[in-house]
């Protein structure tokens, strides 16, 4: 067990936000959600609430620039620790989720970065939709003009493993002008509410603020299921079970945008073996292991090291020690600690080398088979390979990110790895940074959150390769349809 001792269970009340309106829990319409550190009291999600969650035409009519400007204002609030809501959020992440203070601050920093990254959001629209103007105007595409429209009501079933992922889902849906219902995960009831409430801090009457809701229901709740059934788009983060539940319950026309279970790996080539470069690679790997305690799908769980692995292993201990200071680990639950402990014992029994921090805060295991069950909690499985060609056999469509060092490994292997199903390849140390243009689990999410309409040119325009006016009736009558296109 690491981190401050758990002294007592906190009692915390978290409100819902329904269509931009704060809703506090009032007995008896309340629900208690317990975790190892706190009992969280929230309102009971009701059919009446669900009825209020309908598509808001205001945001659909808003110019994209106004949405992005509002998000930027919001992100500027979150930038400073002297913003009261951020301060309380950081405190509560520690109290309610056991996250260390630096890690909690890091989450708040990421929320700020995600919200205020306006130039990157424009780039993302440009790349993923083909034009950053696509949601505001008809854009010429060959012989048609195309415009993107929001799907309408988007419901986001969050996983809660990475708190700031709620901001990612929120921004994606808002910049595509969708109405947003953030359905919190039981393990993170704080982030969706904090995001929605901070919009009310900023401007409670703004159409964006009025288009966002933050609620919770559990899977047995009929009101929640019915809401998913009438949603126009459902983003689902988390387990395969969650994705399958959405597929069963979403409406036939709904766009399902799944971010299901993925794992990520690191690959280090033999070219790096000495000096500052080795230190840099070890720190980069430590970053990708330590951020979010490996609960993120982009966290490296295992590293393939081109032989010899010893120089990197020696450097890794120091790097992990450094990152233990930079991002102290979340408080363990007894169950978490037991799973890690069992993994260590099992690995030792199987003859693997196990290196553990003095306080148990991290573990490096060398000698387990690739793909062995992984317990999270900053455990890195090291696999020494004689050739990086061996790595391919362990990659499939469930691998989200491969982080590489040195970078030229990417050029040498990306065709092979990507054809096996890998979604992203990044430099080691940057696995969490989704650059504009990056794919997420194999696709562009913004493109899934819009529908496209086209207006096509009239008959007066022949079109490329057509040699005569398009009069289909006449051509059918004369049997000359086949001549319509130039040979």
């Amino acid at each position, binding site marked *: 067990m690491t981190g401050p001792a758990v002294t007592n269970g906190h009692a915390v009340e978290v409100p819902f936000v329904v269509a931009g309106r*704060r809703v506090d829990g009032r007995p008896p319409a309340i629900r208690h959600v317990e975790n190892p550190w706190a009992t969280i009291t929230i309102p009971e999600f009701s059919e009446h609430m669900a009825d209020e969650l309908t598509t808001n035409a205001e945001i659909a009519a808003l110019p994209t620039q106004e949405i992005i*400007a509002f998000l*930027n*204002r919001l992100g*500027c*609030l979150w930038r*400073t*620790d*002297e*913003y*009261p*809501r*951020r*301060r*309380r959020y950081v*405190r*509560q992440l520690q109290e309610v989720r056991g996250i260390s203070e630096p890690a909690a601050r890091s989450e708040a920093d990421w929320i700020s970065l995600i919200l205020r990254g306006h130039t990157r959001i424009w780039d993302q629209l440009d790349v993923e939709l083909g034009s950053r103007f696509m949601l505001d105007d008809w854009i010429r595409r060959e012989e048609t003009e195309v415009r993107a429209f929001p799907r309408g009501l988007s419901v986001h079933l969050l996983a809660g493993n990475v708190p700031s992922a709620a901001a990612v889902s929120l921004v994606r849906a808002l910049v595509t002008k969708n109405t947003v219902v953030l359905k919190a995960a039981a393990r993170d009831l704080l982030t969706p509410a904090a995001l929605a*409430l901070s919009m*009310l*801090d*900023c*401007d*409670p*009457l703004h159409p964006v603020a009025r288009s966002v809701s933050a609620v919770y229901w559990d899977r047995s709740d009929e009101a929640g299921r019915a809401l998913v059934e009438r949603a126009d788009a459902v983003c689902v983060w988390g387990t395969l079970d969650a994705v399958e539940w959405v597929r069963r319950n979403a409406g036939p026309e709904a766009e399902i945008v799944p971010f299901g279970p993925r794992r990520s790996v690191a690959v280090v080539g033999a070219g790096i073996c000495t000096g500052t470069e080795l230190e840099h690679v070890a720190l980069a790997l430590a970053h990708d292991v330590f951020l979010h305690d490996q609960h993120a799908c982009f966290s490296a769980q295992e590293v393939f090291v081109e032989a010899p692995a010893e120089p990197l292993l020696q450097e890794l201990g120091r790097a992990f020690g450094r990152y233990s200071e930079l991002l102290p680990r979340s408080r363990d639950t007894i169950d978490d600690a037991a799973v890690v402990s069992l993994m260590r014992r099992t690995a030792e029994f199987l003859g693997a080398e196990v290196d553990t921090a003095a306080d148990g805060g991290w573990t490096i295991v060398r000698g387990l088979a690739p793909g062995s069950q992984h317990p999270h909690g900053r455990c890195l499985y090291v696999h020494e390979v004689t050739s990086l060609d061996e790595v391919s056999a362990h990659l499939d469509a469930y691998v989200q990110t491969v982080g590489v060092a040195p970078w030229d490994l990417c050029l040498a292997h990306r065709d092979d790895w990507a054809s096996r199903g890998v979604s992203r390849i990044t430099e080691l140390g940057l696995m969490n940074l989704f650059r504009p243009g990056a794919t997420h689990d194999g696709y562009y999410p913004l493109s899934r959150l819009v529908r496209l309409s086209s207006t096509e040119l009239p008959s007066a325009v022949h079109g490329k390769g057509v040699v005569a006016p398009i009069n289909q009736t006449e051509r059918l009558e004369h049997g000359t349809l086949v001549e319509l296109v130039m040979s």
Partner: protein
Amino acid sequence: MSKMRYGTFVTTGQPPGMSEGWAFDEAVAHAHAAENLGYRDVWVLEHHFTPFGLCGDALTLAAYLLGATSTIDVGTAVTVVPLDHPIRLAERVAMIDHLSGGRLLFGIGRGDFPREFEALGRDVSESHLMIREGWEALKGLWAGPYSNDGRFWPFGQVNTLPKPLSIPYPKAYAAASSPSSVEWAARNGLPLLLLYYLEDEVKRSIVDLHADVTRECGGDPSLTEHALSCVAHVADTTEQAQEDVLARYLWWIKAGGDAIYELPDRPERREINYGFHYARRDEAILRGARDIDVYNVERLFALNPIGSVDLCVDRIVSKAELLGVNHIICGFEGVSERSGVIESMARFMSEVVPAVEQRQLVGGEVSVT
């Protein structure tokens, strides 16, 4: 919810064309009117070098008003602790507490206007540290012989006299909106004077943060009695009410803004302690406001009980419910004539207050916020 307590502000603002004497005459007249109308407290402001408020020493004016009235409490909103010596403050507060029979409410803050610090040779970037040291010294001096080895007011052991009549000291409040100051206030058991220009959800997050820290310190947040400041005006219609106060508010906001933003191109401008001033201005620009003063007056209209009786009732009830406060302090000096101010105060007390009580009694729905 316990019965609501109402107070009022007197600003000692000196609008163009009015004399300095007029500003003080109005303040005294409004304080008398408040007492006669059943308000429980009247609060005085403290500023320097600005017609925004001519009162440069809130305790002096509070002492005068306490002497001129007989039942109403008088509060300082606020005494700027960094700008005074704690020994002098401790003595004056304790003396006024005695002279008034315990009717002094001691509101403190770390100061709002950077120029005051510059003129008085204080470093505005350290105001948050000064108020902490100053408050520790005040508590120590009121409790017994005390010496201070702090950075700002080091002194050997002294025993200030008199000790306060109120035990352990007059009821104190902190005007705080930054999280660091809110946490400090909570650790010291100081309820907040909640600021009238913040969005309601921001105020709520401040109250929640205060409650978290109070609980951490072993206290019971439900016993904390914050006071909510508002600007208020009652008229037959909301449009009429806004029209009544528009000119005075524009002047008052501009005068305040001039005092706050008087440090262009100076490093202090972006001091983290005062970032919230500039955040408000930046926000106005980002919202597309062409005139920050007009923008700020519009924000006052949107957030405060300025309007018809129904609107005022809705706003008071919704704010009291959201923030859990039962103490509202309203500034009525939005119209130029004394009679207009007092009429608005009277109408608030005779029409808004009973309706609020009735609404709270039956737990009615709030339709307008």
